[in-house]
């Protein structure tokens, strides 16, 4: 008996739980919430809606060349490969950031609201680690949603149109593997962009205990960014706005692929991510347990 007790390490300093276990437990916690699952399922229904809608409408209302996302619909007809990318483009504007904000709101403000954040704060876990686990959870939810949208979009496109004729905007035809690689790239890229939005939401989340405030603040921010983008007098601001780079997602449909816009927007998202996580960390580390 005594021997067994002596064999245990002295508990004068906290035992570190393995990081993997923390991450898995956080994920299990998030994915057990019905709202997360429902949101992901609803989002992944969007490509089905677009695909069926466009095919039923057919060429009838394909107008002359426009510049909006509408002209992507034209090339979609007879081109299943565009559907995942088009769905992501449309969802990136509002619904995916909304999912990120929801997840971020649950991560800190929600826990605070339930009184469970206190338990996490007094646990022998560094605040940086806590924030890291939370940010990972949010990012994973966003990734699952994005991947689900792309996957459903791809399957819908293949069923409706078939695997031949994966035409780029540039007018040449891609192999199926190449098309898959590009869809994979857009999933990763979109996830990172939404994760940056979610990091800002996480910062708000650290300041409040009302998840609704986080959602409202993030949506308001997204709307303000959209408004700033259309005011010509404020166009000097555009390089600073995260949302202005989001149009470059359609670049994955060009061949040869222009990387500039995608890389630039990724670096911008990294800056937003750093700002969001830093503010969240500053707030968390000064919170009393």
């Amino acid at each position, binding site marked *: 008996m005594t021997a067994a007790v002596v064999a245990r390490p002295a508990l004068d300093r906290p035992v570190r739980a393995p990081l993997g276990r923390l991450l898995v437990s956080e994920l299990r916690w998030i994915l057990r919430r019905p709202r997360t699952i429902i949101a992901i399922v609803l989002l992944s229904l969007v490509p089905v809606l677009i695909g069926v809608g466009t095919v039923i409408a057919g060429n009838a209302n*394909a107008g*002359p*060349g*426009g*510049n*909006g*996302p*509408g*002209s*992507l619909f*034209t*090339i979609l007809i*007879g081109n299943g490969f565009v559907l995942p990318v088009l769905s992501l483009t449309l969802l990136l504007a509002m619904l995916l950031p909304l999912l990120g904000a929801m997840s971020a709101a649950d991560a800190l403000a929600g826990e605070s609201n339930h009184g469970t954040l206190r338990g996490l704060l007094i646990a022998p876990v560094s*605040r940086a680690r806590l924030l890291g686990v939370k940010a990972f959870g949010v990012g994973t939810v966003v990734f699952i949603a994005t991947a689900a949208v792309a996957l459903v979009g791809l399957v819908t496109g293949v069923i409706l149109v078939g695997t*031949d*004729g994966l*035409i780029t*905007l*540039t*007018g*040449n*035809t891609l192999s199926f593997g190449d098309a898959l690689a590009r869809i994979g790239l857009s999933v990763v890229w979109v996830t990172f962009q939404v994760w940056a939005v979610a990091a800002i939401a996480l910062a708000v989340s650290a300041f409040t205990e009302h998840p609704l405030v986080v959602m409202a603040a993030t949506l308001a921010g997204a709307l303000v960014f959209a408004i700033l983008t259309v005011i010509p007098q404020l166009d000097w601001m555009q*390089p*600073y706005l995260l949302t202005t780079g989001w*149009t470059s997602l*359609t*670049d994955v449909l*060009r061949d*040869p692929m*222009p990387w*500039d816009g995608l890389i*630039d927007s990724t*670096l*911008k998202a*990294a*800056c*937003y*991510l*750093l*700002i969001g*996580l*830093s*503010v969240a*960390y*500053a*707030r*968390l*580390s*000064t919170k009393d347990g």
Partner: protein
Amino acid sequence: MSGKKAGLVAGAAGVLAGVVGLGVLAMPAGAGPAPVLPKVSAEELVQSVLTTKSMPALAGTVTATNNLGLPSVPGLGQASRFLGNGTTNTQVWTDGKGKGRISLPNSASEETIVYDGTTVWDWTSSNKTVHKETGGPDKAHPDKPSSGEVATDPAQAAKQVIALISKDSTVKVDGTATVAGRSAYEVVLAPKPTERTLLREVRIAVDAETKIPLQLSVLANGNAQPVGQIGFSKLEIGTQDPALFTFTPPADAKVVTGDAEKLAQKKPDAAKNLPQPKLVGTGWDTVLVEKLPAGLLGNGDKTAKTKGGQSFDPSKLLGQLGKRVSGPWGAGYQVSTAVGTALILDDGRVAVGAVPQQVLIDALASVK
């Protein structure tokens, strides 16, 4: 307590780094210090430009910045994005042997023009149409230097060009610059003080190594920024993938062969009936004067149609574009831009030039 302080400091440092990063990203690609290049006279430079007969194989992005202040005209379609104020990016590729590729990306569509040596393919993704035309490399090569045929001897030609320009302008090599990451000489053409023009100078950046023009900027009086600029924002000289210069129409695309192009060219037949325009003056203050047939701008004529097919009243459009002016010389509309002025009088006389209004009035008086 100190843990909290450390957290705040770390947070503040992170925010600062993020903001600085955003600032760095938002900054336009810096011009950097001017490269040091061997001195060269304007004549030698023009000569070496003329000796360069062909473009090397390259891939690049051509950026056109337009601050001309042109009023926006409805119904111009694709052309309007080049005419309106703003920046347009075009990607170009050439293999240096005549084949070429141009791509005009839009936010959600793209027009690609490929010249594969025998055929010009013009693909528009927004309506999935390919225009196919055999022959005619000119279309695929708008940026091919065309001045090469002026004289066979480049040295002679350079002298001619310089002599022609120096009648009204001063030409000099004004230092060096970095354009699209390449060292370039800046050639400056400035009007002589006697020229009555709105323009201040024209700057051409010539690549020091390959001697191809990299950038053309037009500067007007009273404006530090170029009113118009076209040039490479990215340039990569080297062998290009031959697959870029081939085009296979996608399976379900609509392919239109050359005939449609010919039909389109027939359209401006009406314009042939117009009298030939006349040039008044020389050099920078040249004014183009034209007498349009009476009634074209008149009240009852509604035959003018935009691309969309709606008819519009030309005089109403002029009222939107310009302001009503009148004087002893007549009455009409004046359209002013950063680089030029146009006078359209009610009696059909039209004068256009890179000059202030008074010069136009003088020119109109001279051709009465």
